[in-house]
């Protein structure tokens, strides 16, 4: 990697980060539309069920939204606040929305990372196995596994995993991120964290694992017929080397594309998995805000998660460009 390419990456990042702006604007507009269309006035909606919020809070909200002013002015107010990442205040949790979100963010990112790691690695392994043994027993078994996995609802899979692995077998904990009954540090803490991560990460990973397996299989089969694979064979390379070094290396490209496209869906999956496993992340927070009818918080989560998807997408694009030298920054 040359120096010029690295500085090109930074230029690319600077340029791409501007893309967050229209996303913020778009989601803010969407949120505003939802609030306008919802039954009752904005403050009624945001304050949740009548009587739940204090009069001071209601007054503050009315001031924030400029409800006495015409709708376009209200929208300007809303945009102004949103642009400064002022997502308002959660009355229920008695904390600024942004602070609540940032507190829960690391847990969600950790869960997503673990799940994606599992999905990508197992998807690669199963996809390669399937392609190497195409139309033979191993391929057929994997294909059926993929078909069934596609149809499994994530939340249901999580519940069944709890029944089997936590309740019946007692292997793994079923809820939370760490064992809160004991104070652990260092290695023991990490071990505890890992144990708590296994079930939620596997549950979230399952669907994507199926998607990637299929994708890698298709890509590998296509590459096996490619000219450069024929060249590698004509050089005298072994089949193993051709598979892993030439075909698989190139199959990473469609895999990254798919990963980028699915970031939003992965975050959606995390919401469900977190609520099943009481994982203290953004999804759990969204679930809590639904139960508490804390819509200001819920809308904040929607906005923030969309921005997060955009930023992660840019990261995926950078990784892609490093994997594919044909991409110019």
């Amino acid at each position, binding site marked *: 990697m040359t120096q010029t390419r690295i500085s090109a990456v930074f230029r690319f990042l600077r340029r791409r980060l501007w893309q967050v702006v229209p996303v913020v604007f778009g989601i803010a507009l969407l949120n505003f539309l939802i609030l306008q269309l919802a039954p009752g006035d904005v403050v009624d909606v945001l304050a949740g069920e009548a009587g739940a919020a204090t009069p001071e809070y209601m007054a503050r909200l009315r001031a924030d939204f400029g409800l006495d002013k015409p709708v376009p002015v209200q929208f300007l107010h809303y945009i102004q606040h949103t642009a400064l990442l002022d997502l308002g205040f959660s009355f229920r949790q008695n904390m600024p929305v942004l602070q609540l979100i940032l507190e829960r963010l690391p847990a969600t990112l950790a869960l997503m990372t673990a799940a994606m790691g599992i999905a990508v690695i197992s998807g690669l392994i199963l996809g390669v196995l399937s392609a190497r043994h195409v139309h033979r027993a191993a391929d057929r078994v994997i294909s059926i596994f993929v078909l069934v996995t596609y149809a499994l609802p994530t939340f249901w899979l999580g519940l069944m995993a709890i029944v089997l692995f936590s309740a019946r077998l007692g292997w793994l904990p079923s809820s939370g991120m760490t064992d809160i009954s004991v104070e652990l540090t260092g290695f023991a803490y990490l071990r505890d964290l890992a144990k708590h991560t296994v079930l939620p990460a596997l549950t979230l990973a399952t669907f994507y694992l199926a998607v990637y397996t299929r994708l890698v299989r298709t890509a590998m089969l296509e590459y096996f017929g490619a000219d450069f694979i024929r060249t590698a064979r004509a050089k*005298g390379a072994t089949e193993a080397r051709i598979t892993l070094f030439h075909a698989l290396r190139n199959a990473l490209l469609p895999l990254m594309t798919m990963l980028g496209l699915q970031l939003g869906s992965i975050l959606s999956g995390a919401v469900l998995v977190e609520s099943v496993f009481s994982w203290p992340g953004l999804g759990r927070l969204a679930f809590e805000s639904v139960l508490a009818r804390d819509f200001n918080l819920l809308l904040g989560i929607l906005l923030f998660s969309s921005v997060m998807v955009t930023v992660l997408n840019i990261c995926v694009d950078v990784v892609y460009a490093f*994997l594919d030298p044909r991409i110019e920054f």
Partner: protein
Amino acid sequence: MAALLSIRGLRTWFHTRAGIARAVDDVNLHLQPGETLALAGESGSGKSVTAYSILRLIQPPGRIEAGEIMFNGTNLLTLDDRGIRNVRGNRVAMIFQEPLSAFNPVQKVGAQIVEAIRLHRRVSRRAAYARAVELLAQVGIPSPGARAHEFPHRLSGGMRQRAMIALALACEPDILIADEPTTALDVTTQAQILDLLKSLQARNGMGLLLITHDLGVVAETADRVAVMYAGRVVEEGPVDTLFSRPSHPYTAGLLAAVAIDDVPPGERLPEISGMAPSLLAMPQGCAFAARCPKASAAAGCFTESPVFSSLTLQRHVACFAANPAASPVTVFPRSAMRDDNVRVAA
């Protein structure tokens, strides 16, 4: 002189859903050290499949059904996997039609040559890299050190094909198989690449098997030519005599069709009427009979397959109607055959 490579009775068939396609059916060829043999024919005639069969690069549903490919006293078709890998890229190397897609897009050019070297030679990465740069210089690539560091898509078409040749020469092979090496290039670059191949061959003394549909390339580059039609070699011999006096009506037709430049404007191009038979459903008798102006039931053209046999010491043909003394004029009707065209093409 013992042949460097000799192919006997090669059959490579493709087992498709629609049936068995006999892409290569009983092909016999031989190549001497330092010689250039051109394998010519239309697309689908089996010339590329023959070339890929030599290194056993045929992928399913294709399969080599029968035959013998002797190289240096061993039959390549009976070698085990390790044995054939030892030949590939080492003793027999290949270059391909489309140099862009023939390179791994995500690996640097130098690294791909290094891989070719280190698959067969126990040398350090550094030494292999130095050798790769040297090879790039040898094939006439300017500033080879910098080019080795580029990804394939950054090179021009001609440079890519030169790099491909460098890759093929990595282990100084005894035989170079070139599959339509100039088809994807513009005319000027074509000539340069052919010149390069000739000069490299003169220096290394390797045998060159040139697969091409371009009779101009054949005339310019090859010592001998074998013409393929529908999976079989129909005629074979030294380029000069074969081009000036083709024996097989198909060869004669091809040569007539080549001289497009010399057809006066407004006049129809000479071409062989009809289509090549489907490889899935080969007719009885000679595969060319249906299109052949000389075919006759009396000679058995429609009922029996003509045997590939000697015409003279150096020339072989598979045709009942072929006559060694026949001039082009008598082989083909005057209207479709112009002897001056043939000379231009040659």
